[in-house]
């Protein structure tokens, strides 16, 4: 149980270290670079849900790819996404997801499917669920991790994706 209390502090420290002096830093001045990005800038149809960041001890905090959501009166529907790449330790680590807004989380569930393709029949496996704080043991191996979050007060819901691989 001590870990449960210490973990947010460890993560907070890791995040602050990333902001202040962490190793890979985004450039201070944006530099246009050639990209193969197919999607041009696109104004969202309405408010967007909070960013979700997956953190775990010794790992780089990583923002998720945002999938389907309904949020504050607007929403967007997406397919199953490959997810934002994250290198996880070879042994199960305790991951925690932080949201960029302080919102009531009524329920959440984390599911995995083999990485690299949309889930087929029998591929999906729920690895954790709960309400409130989003903490769960990260699976080892190559998976797409889908996190579904229901927000309280009828704000809506959002689905986030990471692609887990061995670090």
């Amino acid at each position, binding site marked *: 149980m001590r870990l449960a209390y210490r973990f*947010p502090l460890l*993560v907070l420290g890791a*995040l602050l270290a*990333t*902001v202040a002096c*962490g190793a*890979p830093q*985004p450039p201070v001045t944006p530099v246009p670079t050639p990209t193969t*990005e*197919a*999607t*041009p*800038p*696109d104004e*969202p*149809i*309405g408010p*967007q849900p909070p*960013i979700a*960041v997956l953190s775990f001890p010794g790992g780089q*905090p*990583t*923002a998720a*790819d*945002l*999938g*389907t959501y*309904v*949020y*504050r*009166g*607007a*929403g*967007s*529907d997406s*397919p*199953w*996404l*490959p997810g*934002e*790449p994250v290198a996880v330790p070879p042994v199960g680590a305790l991951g925690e997801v932080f*949201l*960029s807004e*302080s*919102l*009531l*989380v009524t*329920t959440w569930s984390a*599911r995995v499917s083999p990485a690299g393709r949309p889930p087929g029949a029998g591929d*999906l496996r729920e690895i954790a669920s709960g*309400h*409130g*704080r989003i903490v769960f043991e990260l699976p080892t191996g190559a998976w797409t991790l889908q996190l579904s979050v*229901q927000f*309280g007060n*009828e*704000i*809506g*819901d959002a*689905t986030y994706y990471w692609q887990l691989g061995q670090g």
Partner: protein
Amino acid sequence: MIRFSRRGSRAAALIVLAAAITGVVPAAAHSPDPVFGGPLYAQNQELKFRWRAGQEPPAAMQLVIRQGAADANASRNSRAATFVSDPAGASWISYGLNVGCGVNGLACFSRLGAPNSFTMSFRENGHRYDWGILRWCEMTGRPNGCFDARNSALDEFGHVEILTHHVNFADESDFLDAVVQTIQRVKPEAGYDAHVFGRCDIASLQRKYDMLNWAAKYSTCLDLATTLTLSAPSFVNYGANVPLTATLTVVDLDAYERLGGNPVSNRTITVQRRAPGVAAWTSIGVMSAAAAAGTYTFVAPSQTSTAEWRAVFGKPAGEGLKGDNSPIVGVTVSSCRTAPCPQSVPPGATE
């Protein structure tokens, strides 16, 4: 994939950590679809939509969007808003590249204009995402791997009404209970081409917008308690008929929203009778629908003995109502005063 890690770091740098608070009962799997906040449209409000200037869908897409609107209207099974195409509509639907659906969205909506209007958008066929290329089935005729645009339109119209994504069981065995889903299935997966709202979509539409009429069936995704009452005269003369009147309503609970207290018509209500002191009930007949909503009548003819009566509403198959028994009503029948009367002791017999 440098873009990925950069985005992750940027987001992390911006984030304000906040632990979420617990304590609210979540929507359970197999429950009616969750809903989100915001004003409802009026009951049966007709929402007229047009194609957004400069972002009109191609003809094939216009057709399936209109079909999706018709699917929503036909399968709402409630007094939810209806949708109709009209060039002068206050609401608009767009199609194209920059339609506001975000980096990964196939289709999107806004009901920020409720209760007057809405907007809806569809990504253009052939759009390239990080995850692949969007193919709408109706525009490509592909045998598999495409998204059914008519299903997608129905999902978006469901959102416009007030629905958010159904919470499935972990194994998604209940996927077909709702069209408004987090992940739209691709052809030929089961449910990819659902063109009617699922029972758990309808359940929430009924709770929010009420029933089309009092005889309409309640979604089997609901399980509403009912109240059955029975009234009858407490005393009748020997040989008289006993008129019985029952009323059936949905229990008036806040959780039932607009459905609480509804009269329930055109159901099967059975009348049962027993002699005082006897445990077993005997079914006498089925009550008839009366003029008033949720009211049923029955006339028990020529009663010659005091009895207890009750009405019974058995849990119906195929709808989301619980059964109920009315309270017991006693009806006293007077002694026989006018011949011919039955003899308690046959003539000539000795006691």
